[in-house]
């Protein structure tokens, strides 16, 4: 049996203290295999974003362990976490997450530049991914010149360009129309299938849920 690539065990996270304390996640266990795509579904405030933040090392759990590819995040300091995210994680946020001063090309180039990949290789990879998205003609455009769906597809391209082990996408289809939403999900599915990247995305969109097999439902911080 294949070893689990991502393991979340007994994860607890509470924001605030005393009477104002809000439990975001309570005793969460989650196991995902390499190359698998999982969808975390649940209503607003159910803890979906918190789960992604903890998994991506953007926040620290109050208790429990998170292991990605055998590496335990809670054993890392801030500097190590930053390097880990740079190399191993790709992030897709809700709308408007592209850097507005950068063109499409430069936005996708950012993770490669951080990893000091040489210019020639950067160019090749960017051209290839833009071509696969059918967006080569948009490479010199700025984010404000793109539609919501196009922005999200570029965000996905940026998240996977450096071949990370894990991509976390927080409601990537929020605020998109049906057609754009379908295009974004198609992009995610194509990339996860072709590149064997583990994907976790959150959503509360029923149409999105119907496209995936592995669905994890969250409610009040618990997996149900």
């Amino acid at each position, binding site marked *: 049996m294949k070893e689990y690539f991502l393991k979340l065990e007994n994860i607890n996270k509470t924001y605030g203290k005393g009477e104002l304390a809000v439990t975001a996640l309570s005793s969460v266990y989650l196991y995902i295999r390499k190359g698998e795509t999982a969808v975390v579904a649940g209503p607003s405030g159910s803890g979906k974003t918190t789960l992604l933040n903890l998994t991506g090392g953007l926040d620290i759990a109050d208790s429990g362990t998170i292991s990605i590819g055998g590496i335990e995040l809670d054993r890392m300091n801030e500097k190590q976490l930053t390097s880990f995210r740079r190399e191993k994680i790709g992030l897709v946020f809700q709308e408007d997450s592209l850097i507005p*001063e950068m063109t499409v090309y430069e936005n996708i180039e950012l993770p490669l530049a951080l990893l000091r990949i040489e210019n020639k290789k950067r160019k090749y990879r960017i051209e290839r991914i833009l071509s696969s998205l059918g967006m080569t003609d948009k490479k010199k455009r700025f984010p404000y010149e793109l539609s919501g769906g196009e922005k999200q597809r570029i965000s996905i391209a940026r998240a996977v360009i450096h071949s990370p082990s894990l991509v976390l996408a927080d409601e990537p289809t929020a605020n998109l129309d049906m057609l754009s939403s379908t295009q974004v999900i198609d992009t995610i599915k194509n990339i996860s299938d072709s590149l064997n990247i583990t994907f976790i995305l959150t959503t509360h969109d029923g149409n999105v849920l119907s496209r995936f097999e592995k669905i994890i439902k969250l409610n009040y911080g618990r997996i149900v």
Partner: protein
Amino acid sequence: MIFWIKYSLRSVLRRYRTTVVIFAGFTFSVAVLVFLGAVMTGVNDTMIQNALKLHSGYIFIEGKPGNYSSAVTGLERIKQILGKNPEIIKISGRLTIPVMIQTEKNSMAFLLNGIDPENEAEITPVSKKLTEGKYLPGDGILIGKKGADILGIKVGDWVSVYTPSSMNTLKVTGIFSTGIDSFDSGMIFSRKEIFRDINETTIGYHLALFLRNNDKLKETARVISEEFKDKNIKTWEEKLPDIYQLVKLNEMAMFIMIFLVILILGFGITNTLLTSVMGRKRHFAIMKAMGIRSGEIITAIIAESSIICISSGLAGTAAGIMLVAFSSSLGGMDLSRYTSYNPNFAVNSIIMPRLTPGMTLLPQFLAVFSGIAASTIPAFRIIREKVIKGMRNI
């Protein structure tokens, strides 16, 4: 590093509205500071020239007293040697003797200066400061207005001039007024030749040397001191310590002003950069989430600030230089309406702004330094902000 400098350059160019606001403010401030620095130098130049033109020159050489012949020989020998020094543009040589003038009304002590009228008229302003009479047409003396008033002397009067061992009767041919009390009540002038008839062994002589400007004062004084070791040589700074103090005070006041302007500028820049950087808080948070290190964020923000500060500093310096050139082309700034009673501007009240390397580069250096220092504040605020907090708005 190069990637972040490129990123900063793109950010500066592509966020042109913010860039233009910071650039314009910075350029204006540096230009004003360069101009103010040049005005300060001009004020000092005018103060120095006004003080020196009356009597001492930039460097004052005093010979040992003797009879007329030895004094004239000493004077001419020094003039001949110093005439070859390229830093010295004019020399005024004078014979001197302390005298007492007695009238029916009063008596007063003066220093009688034997001059070459034509040469003196080119150098010092006494000839232009006559209120009555003529400028030494022949044998006779010029007397200051204050001295003349105390003694009750008018032009055309004959007065008894007492030297230590003799008395001569001389005609008053003119009265001058410089506005400086000590000068108007203590100095009288005559042609040098009059001293031939004064049979004294206490005739002194001095030379007032005029330089191109004050920049090479000490170096020239040192060279002259080595050449004439037996002479009493003083720079104007030693001869006129009150004026020197005033010039230093003026410099200090200007430095304080420049410092305050830079401080205000620094606060302004900090505020603008803080607004500019904090406005992009969520984008920096995204970059941090992607794995950008603190050092890279600091590099990006400081590089952005450096690009704006250095370019606008250069533009400001160029604009300041143009302002100075424009002001000079108009003939300087005439302050006579405001300084007519100021003894330090008795001779010339036109301020000609002058650029010096220090005062031209200092504003730019300070402004760039303060701008870059100011940019560390938003940079550190961004890196201290938790990724999760910065991303909450996304």
